[in-house]
């Protein structure tokens, strides 16, 4: 097991994006916050299984009241990535993240989601006022010396230009802009925004016979822990049929890969490693 995903705030988020594949939002607690103790227990279990990286997701991880304690526990064990909308990153939090980025035993990646290089383009998906708040979060992270990444969803047939985002990031004081493109998963709210998956959009046996099958799919090298149990990946946490167990020890067998989202993961070689 290479990658431990922790759904640190479950499905609780401060915003409700139209493309969210697990339909997170301010009142959505289908998956609840993980306690610090539950996070540490999962980390120790994962490290004993050879885990080499830990990712925090949600919901919005910075809603967690003990997020810096949980982060320190993780960084003592492995490199950590945090997926965030950046809106809650005030000066103090940015400073704390900057210190950890420089001084922690291992790498800290802060990946900020931004789905447009303008307020108009971003906020049609992520909600009114989000662009402004995220922009300020990015500015503070850059000032604190965090080498952040901006994650951009490919929402339509015409992906936005990389240079638009690079220009925006330079304006915000980011010296070496890093961007990453993320595919949409046609589930949750995204199913209503554009369309849902068709039942035939699944992986074929020939795909899975390939030599690199295991490392191409997220479930080939990782597991996701939420308050409700262990799942193959952060994408399928709302699909009860794909729950693998209540603890990592019960969830290490091969995961089923017959969901249409598995085909997206495969086609996009979806990996949250940089």
């Amino acid at each position: 097991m290479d990658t431990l995903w922790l759904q640190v705030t479950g499905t609780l988020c401060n915003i409700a994006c139209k493309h969210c594949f697990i339909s997170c939002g301010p009142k959505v607690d289908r998956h609840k916050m993980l306690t610090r103790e539950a996070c540490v227990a999962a980390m120790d279990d994962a490290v004993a299984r050879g885990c080499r990286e830990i990712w925090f997701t949600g919901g919005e991880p910075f809603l967690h009241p003990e997020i810096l304690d949980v982060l320190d526990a993780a960084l003592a064990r492995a490199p950590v990535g945090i997926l965030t909308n950046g809106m809650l990153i005030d000066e103090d939090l940015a400073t704390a993240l900057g210190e950890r980025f420089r001084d922690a035993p291992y790498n800290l990646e802060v990946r900020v989601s931004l789905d447009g290089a303008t307020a108009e383009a971003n906020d049609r998906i992520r909600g009114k006022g989000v662009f402004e708040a995220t922009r300020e979060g990015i500015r503070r992270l850059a000032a604190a010396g965090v080498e952040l990444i901006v994650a951009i969803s490919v929402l339509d047939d015409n992906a936005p230009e990389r240079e638009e985002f690079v220009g925006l990031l330079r304006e915000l004081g980011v010296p070496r802009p890093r961007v990453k493109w993320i595919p949409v998963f046609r589930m949750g709210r995204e199913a209503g925004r554009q369309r849902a998956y068709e039942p035939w959009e699944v992986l074929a046996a020939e795909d899975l016979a390939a030599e690199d099958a295991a490392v191409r799919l997220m479930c080939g090298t990782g597991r996701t822990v939420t308050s409700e149990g262990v799942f193959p990946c952060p994408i399928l946490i709302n699909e009860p049929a794909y729950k693998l167990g209540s603890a990592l020890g019960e969830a290490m067998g091969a995961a089923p890969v017959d969901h249409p989202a598995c085909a997206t993961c495969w086609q996009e070689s979806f990996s949250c490693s940089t």
Partner: protein
Amino acid sequence: MLDLGSFDKVALFGGVYNNWLALEATVADARRRGAQAVVFLGDAGGFGPHPNRSVEGLRSLPIHAIQGNYDDSVGQGLEDCQCGYTDPRDNHFAQISYDYTLANTSAEHREWLRGLPVRGELKVGGKRVRLCHGSPRRVNEFLWESTTPAGFIDHLCREEDVDLIACTHTGIHWERRLADGRGVVNVGAIGRPPNDGKRTVWYSLLEAGPNGIENRFVAVDYDWERLAREMTGEGLPPEFVETIRTGWWTTCLEILPGRERARGHH
């Protein structure tokens, strides 16, 4: 698996990237320092000029070789270098150097690259060293300093039943040891500088010491001005030449973890 036997002092290098001038300088330096064996950990091609010169060097010198992803790709004539990049700009530049290398490597050299072993083993002072390109389990797995935690190193050493893992693939050298002396030495690359604003390249000397295997990274000067001229003469992108002249990486940057990226200029 290539089993090289036991030594007191060995030199390990990786990532020639067609830098045949650095290859000559590195092997001469390792001999001068008394290395009993010199081992290449893969990736003869990429980035630099005149691919045949590096392979000729590797084949004519008394050194041992492990296969890298580039060698596998060029050997088999695959479509790309299998470096594992995920960013479109990285892939754009990687494809330019790969297409150039593939087109300019002779059939005989490609056959030699195709036949290289993917893993090896040797002993230094009785301690076992696993030789590989990316990681012991995957030829194109990146082991960076900031993303290779102690627990994972312990796991890899146990799985391989070795004291030390020697790898390359990232192009930046680093070392991490556990309290009991086991660990990983990433020997870096001699094909281009490690994104540090200097022009020297690096290799690794492992030596038997009183506390087990001691590692020392050795800096190598070579005729970088000549290499830069040859790259320009071959029509390789100015971005590649800039790296040789300045010591800062300009391409294939998105694969770097944040901490390693922050140390660079671009």
